[in-house]
């Protein structure tokens, strides 16, 4: 890269970037190292037992689940993003943000809701029995919701927005001229999409899909509720029922291999692809008006995911919340909602800043070491959250106790536990967990800014930080907002890490829901679940509008 000749002089400023990014990457990688360290000390060798009994089943189930969710979320996400950014049809403006709404619904909540609706005693089967006068479960067959297939649908419905969001951002950022060129060469809009837009959006879609896969891999709430035995379930079982945390860490390490393979495959796939957008961002995007049957088809394709992933769960929760308002309303709710909101916002900002720091340092210094550290740091996303929480407890407690011991010995004072069991730990945990999202999102935006921009700016005498503020930030605003948005929503829903690490008397909405739902008391949990969704959709809508506002449209 030519512009690096400037940094031959290695300004202090530049060194600062590299140093802080390295520190951040190491910090975030610590919990993972703790888990690898744990893996060296299993209480006994679990492998013979696991291999001869349940492990093959865990692995097959996990792979099937990931593949299924990947295909489902990928196809819904790409198709809807393509329709929204290429065509104009009735309801398009609403769908543009409404398609994101299922993101605000935690997977475990949608699982409770659909179980409630579709199981034997649910309204649908009751109605069918009425209709055909069936008496017992043996009289007919109905697909069981609590199954691998059910889990694929549930996760797919709430995870497709990750793909949609990143794919749409990429379609929006693509220069209109490229598509215009394709059209002048005689492509139909569909051909232009398949031959030009889709390949150009591949990096973003790949990021979206890898987020979906990692979320799936990490999910415990849904698979536990559906009794689907994935690797994650096996990890918890080895830890809690066999009292073998080391063995569980070994399984977790095995699971990370899955992730590394995913990432490497994805990187190989686009290693030869580099593209930068030319500065025609202010040219309006053309939308083609659809009419009649095609418009209806487009409308249905966008409506179904929104209905199934958001409207139906929302109505079912609202029904319960209304019916059980007295028992489920708790004066604590305002506090719980505030806790969730404040924590999620703080974590989203912190995580995005970290992501930006790492991505920008990588841009300044093509340092292999930094690249691999960042990559390693983002693996936290795929680690089962409760195990990751243990990985965080270990270094934090060690730090606290070491500091305390040193202070006691040298100054005779005790600092006690300075960080452990505080909100700081929790924020740190969220950063470790969701760095993959922010780093991925920022990087894919930053990658599209041509280096000649940097060179021009640096040649005018600006240093790296000034260039970032003056040039990059305005250009990658969409990517930054996307990162803030996704991390925020994810933190609102986050459960296992919060459960294990939180301070005394500190609860969030998600924890409140979990406590009742794990006792199969959906009615009492519904109001809090509804609140998670409602609090979660406000920023979804706001940010989505801001992201859209970066481009203007022209309807033909």
């Amino acid at each position: 890269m030519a512009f690096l000749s400037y940094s031959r002089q290695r300004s202090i400023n530049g060194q600062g970037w590299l140093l802080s990014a390295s520190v951040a990457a190491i910090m975030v990688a610590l919990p993972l190292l703790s888990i690898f360290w744990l893996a060296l000390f299993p209480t006994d060798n679990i492998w013979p037992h696991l291999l001869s009994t349940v492990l093959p089943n865990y692995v097959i189930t996990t792979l099937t689940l990931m593949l299924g969710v990947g295909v489902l979320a990928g196809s819904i996400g790409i198709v809807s993003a393509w329709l929204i950014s290429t065509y104009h049809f009735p309801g398009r403006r609403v769908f543009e943000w409404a398609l994101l709404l299922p993101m605000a619904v935690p997977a475990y909540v949608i699982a409770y809701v659909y179980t409630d609706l579709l199981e034997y005693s649910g309204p649908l089967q009751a109605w069918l029995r009425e209709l055909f006068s069936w008496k017992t479960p043996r009289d007919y067959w109905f697909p069981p919701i609590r199954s691998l297939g059910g889990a694929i649908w549930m996760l797919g419905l709430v995870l497709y927005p990750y793909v949609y969001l990143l794919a749409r951002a990429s379609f929006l950022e693509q220069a209109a001229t490229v598509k215009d060129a394709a059209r002048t060469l005689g492509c139909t809009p569909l051909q232009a999409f398949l031959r030009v837009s889709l390949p150009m959006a591949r990096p973003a879609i790949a990021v979206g899909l890898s987020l979906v896969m990692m979320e799936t891999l990490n999910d415990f709430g849904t698979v536990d509720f559906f009794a689907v035995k994935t690797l994650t379930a096996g990890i918890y079982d080895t830890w809690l029922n066999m009292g073998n945390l080391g063995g569980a860490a070994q399984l977790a390490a095995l699971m990370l291999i899955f992730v590394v393979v995913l990432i490497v495959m994805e990187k190989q796939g686009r290693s030869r692809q580099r593209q930068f957008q030319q500065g025609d961002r202010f040219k309006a995007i053309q939308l083609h008006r659809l009419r009649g049957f095609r418009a209806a088809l487009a409308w249905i394709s966008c409506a179904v995911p929104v209905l199934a992933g958001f409207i139906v769960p929302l109505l079912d929760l609202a029904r319960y919340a209304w019916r059980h308002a007295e028992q489920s309303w708790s004066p604590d709710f305002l506090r719980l909602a505030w806790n969730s909101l404040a924590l999620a916002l703080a974590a989203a900002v912190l995580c995005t800043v970290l992501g930006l720091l790492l991505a920008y340092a990588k841009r300044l210094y093509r340092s292999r070491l930094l690249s691999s550290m960042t990559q390693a740091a983002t693996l936290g996303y795929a680690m089962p959250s409760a195990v990751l929480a243990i990985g965080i407890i270990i270094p934090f407690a060690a730090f606290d106790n070491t500091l305390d011991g040193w202070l006691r010995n040298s100054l005779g004072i005790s600092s006690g536990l300075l960080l452990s069991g505080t909100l700081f730990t929790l924020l740190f945990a969220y950063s470790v967990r969701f760095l993959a999202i922010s780093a991925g999102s920022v990087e894919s935006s930053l990658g599209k800014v041509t280096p000649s921009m940097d060179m021009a700016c640096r040649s005018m005498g600006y240093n790296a930080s000034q260039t970032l503020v003056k040039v990059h930030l305005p250009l990658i605003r969409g990517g930054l907002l996307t990162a803030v948005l996704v991390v925020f929503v994810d933190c609102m829903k986050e459960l296992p890490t919060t459960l294990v690490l939180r301070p005394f008397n500190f609860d969030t909405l998600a924890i409140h829901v979990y406590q009742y739902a794990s006792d199969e008391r959906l009615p009492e949990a519904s109001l809090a679940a509804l609140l998670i969704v409602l609090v979660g959709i406000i920023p979804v809508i706001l940010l989505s509008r801001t992201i859209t506002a970066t481009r203007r449209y022209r309807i033909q």
Partner: protein
Amino acid sequence: MFKPSVLLLTVAAFTTSVNAAEEVNVYSYRAPFLIQPMFDQFTQETGVKVNVVYADKGLLERLQNEGQNSPADLIMTVDIGVVHDVKTRGLSQPVASELLEQNIPQHFQDPDNHWFALTSRARLIYASKDRVQQGEITSYEQLADPKWQGRICTRSGKHNYNLGLIGSMISHHGEAEAEQWLTGVKANLARRPEGNDRAQIRAIAEGQCDLAIGNSYYFFKMLNNQENPEEIEWARQVTPIAPNQQDRGTHMNISGISLAKYAPHKDNAIKLMEFLSQDEAQHMYADLNQEFPVKAGVQRSELLQSYLGDFKQDELPLVKIAETREAASKLVDKVGFDN
């Protein structure tokens, strides 16, 4: 970028002090709605504030890593396996309290006084009133009888409550026979194990199965659930059976409490332990939670008594159950009980 001063300020802003005078800190594996009423009562009577972190996993690791600076005073647990873990990992300390010795029977406490049971519960068999004759099933062993093929429901074999039951079968019959039994039960399942104990009772009411295995308090809580009358309907369609009355008695498990090894508020912690073992709290456990009080002379809830009466309980030392947990867990894998 990172300025140390800013970082320290952030840390200071986020660290909360837990050193106020009159309080006690609890790490609880028990769901808050089951114990909060007792804590509130305690605070009302003594003025000591109870701070709680509730989680269903990971608290022991947290306690262990926090070491001597841990703020936790008490650990509350729901299963003998975890109770036992607290002791074996060296996370608790013995408590010398005359009150606790008076209130809690010997077999419901650790010989070295590292843990005390506060309540107990029975693992019952639930039978459909319509489809199962009275006296048709009287023991856990009979669950493996082929006559029940496709008629039994239960939650995951990996759940602590089932691991406890399987552990007791291993203790009484040896591993080989227990495996045969579990294979037999697996063959009789109406569906893959799913849901919690409450869901199994509901499944009987809905006709998906005729027998289920479940803890005692679930059924009575359902029967008492004024908030959700559907549950009363479901519960009315099943009969609770206390198994093995002709031989060793019904399998029991406990919820327990331990004093943390480095408890900073030791006096208040022991005060709370004692409070929970006294009549008032024991009555609350019985009436609000439908659990069995452990203190002699405290009545079980009337509802529970009217159904079960004074049934015979398995006297197998609870530690045995804890020690067979891993074997039980592996047996579940081997038989493929949850598949």
